[in-house]
C-alpha cells in the first residue's frame, strides 16, 4: 500500500469510527462502509477487491472491540419522598374517608353509630357486597389498563374499560337485584331497607369499577379531588339536613348516598377523561405538516376473550379474596345477634374492627415510597450482578425485603401500640363502648400481622406472583370464616375477632414462607415476572 493509499484508508477508518467506534467484525465494518456510500468501485480505486476487502483493511486500523465499555444511560427524574408518602396515603382513599367521617362527623360510610339495626344491616351488607363483587374486576381492569396505557394503546385501553363496565355492571345489577330479593325474604329486612342495601351495593360497585383507571394510571390529583368533593358533599348535606330538623338516621342515609353519588359521578368523569375521551396526541407547533406520527388504528383488534380470562384469574382471585377475607369475621359477628333479623348489624364489633383497620392507612403510606422505587432498585442491582453468579442480586433483594419488613413492622407496631394504649379514648370518640375497645385491641394485633402480609403481597407482586398471594387470601378467608364462627359460637359474637387475628397470623406466616423460597432464587423470579 502506498503512503497516499494508507492515508486514504486511515481517513476512511476515522469516518467509520464516527458511526461505530468498535465494529464487531468485517461484515459490520462493511455495513458501515456501504452506509457511508462506499461501493465496490470505490474499493477498487483504493486498491481493494471490493467493499468487503476494504472493510478488512479498515478493521486493521479502527480500535479493537471494547467488550467492557460501559453503557451510557440518561439520568432519571426522582420522585420526592413526601409526594410518594402522600400518594401512598391517598391510595387508601376509601379508608381515609372513613377515618375523617368517623372522627370529624360522628358518622361513617358504615353508619356505625346510633342508627337502627335494620339500617346498619342494610348498609353494611350493601357495602360488603359492593366491594366483594367488584374487587377482582377492578384488579383485572387495572392490570390490563396499565399494560395498554404504557404501550400508548388508547383504543385497547378503552376496549378493556368498556368490557369491564359491561361485565362488572351485569354482576353489580344482578347481585343488587338478588340482594334485594334475599334481604326482603330470607333476611327479613323491610322493603325500603332492602332497597337501601341494593342502592349502596350499586353505588359502591360502580364507583369501584370507574376508579380502576385512576388507580392503574396513578392519577393522584384526581384521587384527591374525588375524595374531597365526596366528603364535602357528605358533610355539607348532613349539616344542612340536621340544621333543617331532619332525623339523624335519615340525614345520615341521605348525606351518605349523596357523598357516594358524588364519588361515583366524579370517578366516572375521571374515567371518561383518562380512558374514553378521544384525544389525539397534540401536534407540537414545530412539527412540520409532513411529519406523520405513528398512530394506532382506531379499529380495535382485541385479544381472545378466554385467553384473557384464564390469564386474569389470579387478579380476579386476589381482588375478590381481599374483601372476602376482610369481611369474613364481620359477617360472622352479624349472625346470631339479638335483633329481629336473621343477620343483625353488630355496631360495637364494626366500630372496633374498622378503627383497627384504619391503621392500615398510615402503614401503607410508610411502605409506599420504598415499594415505589423497587423496580428501580431491581434494575440497579441486576445491572451490578453477573448473570452466571447472581449472589449480589440475591443479597440485594433479600436486603430490600428485610428493610421493607422492618419498616412496615416498626410502623405497624408503633401505630398500633399508640392506638392500643389510647384504645378507650379512640373508641369512645367514635361512639363505641367497652365491647368495641376489646375488639379494637385484639383487631389491632391482627392488623399488624395483616399489614405484614400486605407488604409481602406487594413485594411478591413486583415479581408478578399475584396468584400465590390470592390463594393465601382464599385460604385465609376460609380460616377467618371457620375460626371466627367457632369463637363466636363458643365465646360470644364479638370473639369473632379472634378469627381475624389467627387468619391474619396465617397470612403473615404463609407469605413469609413463600417469599423465603422466592428469595433463594430471585434472579429466576425476576426473569419470569414478565
Amino acid at each position: 500500500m502506498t503512503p497516499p493509499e494508507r492515508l486514504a484508508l486511515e481517513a476512511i477508518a476515522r469516518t467509520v469510527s464516527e458511526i461505530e467506534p468498535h465494529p464487531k467484525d468485517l461484515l459490520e465494518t462493511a455495513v458501515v462502509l456501504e452506509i457511508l456510500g462506499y461501493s465496490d468501485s470505490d474499493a477498487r480505486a483504493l486498491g481493494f477487491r471490493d467493499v468487503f476487502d476494504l472493510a478488512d483493511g479498515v478493521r486493521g486500523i479502527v480500535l479493537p472491540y471494547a467488550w467492557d465499555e460501559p453503557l451510557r444511560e440518561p439520568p432519571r427524574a426522582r420522585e420526592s419522598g413526601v409526594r410518594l408518602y402522600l400518594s401512598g396515603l391517598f391510595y387508601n382513599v376509601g379508608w381515609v374517608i372513613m377515618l375523617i367521617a368517623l372522627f370529624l362527623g360522628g358518622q361513617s360510610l358504615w353508619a356505625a353509630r346510633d342508627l337502627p339495626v335494620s339500617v346498619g344491616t342494610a348498609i353494611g351488607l350493601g357495602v360488603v357486597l359492593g366491594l366483594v363483587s367488584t374487587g377482582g374486576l377492578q384488579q383485572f381492569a387495572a392490570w390490563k389498563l396499565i399494560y395498554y396505557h404504557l404501550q400508548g394503546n388508547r383504543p385497547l385501553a378503552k376496549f378493556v374499560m368498556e368490557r369491564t363496565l359491561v361485565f362488572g355492571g351485569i354482576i353489580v345489577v344482578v347481585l343488587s337485584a338478588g340482594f334485594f330479593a334475599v334481604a326482603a325474604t330470607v333476611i327479613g329486612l323491610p322493603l325500603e331497607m332492602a332497597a337501601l342495601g341494593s342502592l349502596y351495593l350499586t353505588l359502591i360497585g360502580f364507583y369501584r369499577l370507574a376508579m380502576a383507571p385512576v388507580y392503574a394510571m396513578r392519577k393522584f390529583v384526581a384521587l384527591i379531588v374525588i375524595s374531597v368533593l365526596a366528603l364535602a358533599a357528605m358533610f355539607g348535606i348532613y349539616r344542612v339536613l340536621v340544621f333543617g330538623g331532619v332525623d339523624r338516621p335519615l340525614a345520615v342515609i341521605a348525606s351518605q348516598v349523596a357523598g357516594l353519588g358524588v364519588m361515583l359521578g366524579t370517578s366516572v368523569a375521571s374515567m371518561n377523561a383518562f380512558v374514553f375521551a378521544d384525544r389525539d396526541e397534540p401536534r407540537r407547533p414545530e412539527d412540520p405538516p409532513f411529519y406523520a406520527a405513528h398512530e394506532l388504528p382506531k379499529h380495535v383488534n382485541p385479544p381472545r376473550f378466554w385467553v384473557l380470562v384464564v390469564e386474569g384469574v389470579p387478579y380476579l382471585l386476589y381482588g375478590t379474596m381481599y374483601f372476602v377475607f376482610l369481611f369474613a369475621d364481620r359477617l360472622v359477628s352479624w349472625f346470631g345477634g339479638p335483633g329481629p333479623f336473621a343477620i343483625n348489624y353488630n355496631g360495637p364489633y364494626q366500630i372496633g374492627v374498622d378503627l383497627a383497620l384504619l391503621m392500615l392507612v398510615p402503614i401503607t403510606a410508610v411502605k409506599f415510597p420504598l415499594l415505589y422505587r423497587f423496580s428501580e432498585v431491581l434494575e440497579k442491582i441486576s445491572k451490578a450482578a453477573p448473570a452466571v453468579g447472581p449472589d449480589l442480586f440475591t443479597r440485594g433483594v433479600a436486603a430490600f425485603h428485610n428493610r421493607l419488613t422492618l419498616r412496615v413492622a416498626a410502623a405497624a407496631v408503633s401505630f398500633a401500640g399508640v392506638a392500643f394504649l389510647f384504645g378507650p379514648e379512640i373508641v369512645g370518640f367514635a361512639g363505641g363502648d367497652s365491647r368495641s375497645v376489646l375488639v379494637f385491641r385484639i383487631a389491632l394485633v391482627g392488623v399488624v400481622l395483616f399489614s405484614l402480609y400486605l407488604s409481602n403481597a406487594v413485594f411478591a407482586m413486583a415479581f408478578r406472583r399475584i396468584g400465590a398471594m390470592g390463594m393465601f387470601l382464599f385460604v385465609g378467608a376460609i380460616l377467618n370464616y371457620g375460626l371466627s364462627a367457632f369463637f363466636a359460637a363458643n365465646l360470644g359474637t364479638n370473639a369473632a375477632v379472634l378469627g381475624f387475628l389467627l387468619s391474619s397470623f396465617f397470612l403473615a406466616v404463609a407469605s413469609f414462607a413463600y417469599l423465603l423460597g422466592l428469595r433463594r432464587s430471585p434472579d429466576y423470579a425476576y426473569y419470569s415476572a414478565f
Partner: protein
Amino acid sequence: MRVLFLVSGVYPHYMGGVSTWADQLVRGMGEHEFHVVSVVSNPHVEVRYALPSNVKEIITVPLWGTEKPEEYLPGSLSETLRNRWRTTEGTVRADFVHHFETFLEEVKVATPAPPRLAEALYGMHRFLLDHDFRGTMRSRAVWDSFRGMLDRDPLLASMDLYEAIDTLRSLGRYLRVLNVRPPAADIAHAAIASVAGLIGIMAHMEDGTPNILTEHGVYVRERMLDLINQPISPRARVFWTNFHAALAALNYHYAERVYPVCTFNSRWEDRFGVPREKVHVLYNGVDGETFRPREIPRPHPGPTVVAVIRIDRLKDALNLIEAMGYVREAIPDAKCLIYGPSPDADYARLCVAERARRGLDSAVEFCGFTQEPEVAYNLGDVVVLSSVSEGFPFALLEGMASGKAVVATDVGGVAEALGDTGLLVPPRQPRRLGEAVVRVLKDPELRRDLGARARSRATGKYGLGEFIDAYRRAYAEVGGAS
C-alpha cells in the same frame, strides 16, 4: 397451488416498497391460493390493502404488544386450558429443554449447522403447539439452561443479570413464531430471511413443503445496522448479530431458491455462503400503465425536480435540500417538490430548519404523503433519489416508467435498475447531486433522451408481466405446479 406466504412488518398491514411487491405478486397470480402469515411488531394493525379473492387466510403473528402469543392465535378455551395444564417444570425439562439448549448453542455462533438448528427448532415447535408458550418460556428449566449456556461461553459469561434477562425475554419474543401451526401448502415463500421464514422451515420439517426466499434488503445487514444504533453492550450485540446471522443461514439453507431483488444483494448472500446455483436475481416490476408520461397542469411552471420518498435518514432528504442550493445557484427559478411523509419528527424538523438556513424556503416544498405518485412524478422534469441505502427501489422504477430523467445516488441496486438511462452520483455528496440535476435541467435533449430510454427499460426489463411470469415459473419449478 396453495402458497404459504411469509412476510414480516409489511403486506397487508403496512404500506411500502415490499408491500407493493407482495400486492403485485398476489394479484398477479390469481390462479394460486395465498395463505399469508404476517409477522408484526404488535397486534394493533389494520389490513391496508384490498385483498384479492385468492388470499384465503391471514394469520397475524405479533411478536410484541401481547403477554401471550395465544391472545391472537386461533384456538379454543379447552385447548388453552389443556396446554396450560400440560405445561409443568417436569414436561418442559423432559421434552423441551434439550431442544432449547441445542438451539442456543447453534444461534450463539454466526455459522450454525442448519440441520441441527432446524431439528432443535422443530422439536421446540412440536412441543409448543400443545403446551403453554409463556409457561414454557418462563419456566425455571429454560432460565437454567440459558444461564448454563452463558456460563459455558467465555464472552457471554460476562453478561450482567439485567442484560441476560432482557436477552432471554427478547429471544422469547422472536420464538413466538414457533407457536404458529403452518397451514398446509404446496410451497412456502418467505419475503425475508428472518423468523418469518422459520414458519416455512417448520412446514418443511413437518411434511417436506419446499421453501423459496425473496430478499429485498439483506436481513442480516439490516439487523447489523439496527444493532449499531441500539443502546446495548458489545457482548449483547455479538449475541444478537450471531442470532440473526444464524436465522438467515437457516433460511438460506432450506430455501431451494434464493431470489435477491438485485445483484447488489447477492454479494451479501455470497458472503453468507449461499451456493451460487441457488441464487437467481428477480427484479421488482413496475406497472407501466399506471406509471406513464402524462400531461398534467403543473403548479410550478419553471424547472422542477420531484422526489417521492419517505423523509428519513436513509433516504437522505438533507442531501437533496443541500443539492438544491447548488441547483438554485445555476438555475434561480428551479424548484424541488418532495412528496412523502416523515415518520421521524426530529429528522423532519431538521429538514425544515436546513431548508430555512440555506434560504431555500421557496425552492424546496414538502408536499406530504400522496395517494397519487403517478401524478407526482409527472409534475417534474427530473426525478431524484438521494438515498444512502436502497435495495431495488420502486420509486426509481416508477420515475423511470413515468418517462422522467432520473438522477440518483449509486447505492444498492440503483445502478442496476438505472443502467445508462439516468445519471448516477455518489451518496452524501450534495454538490455532485446538484451538478447532475443542473446538467439534466439545462439540457432538454438529454432530458428527453434519458426519459424515453428510462421508460423503455422500466417497462421492458422490469415490466409487471415479466415479474409475475418469473415468479410463476419459480413456483412451478419448486412447488411442482404446471
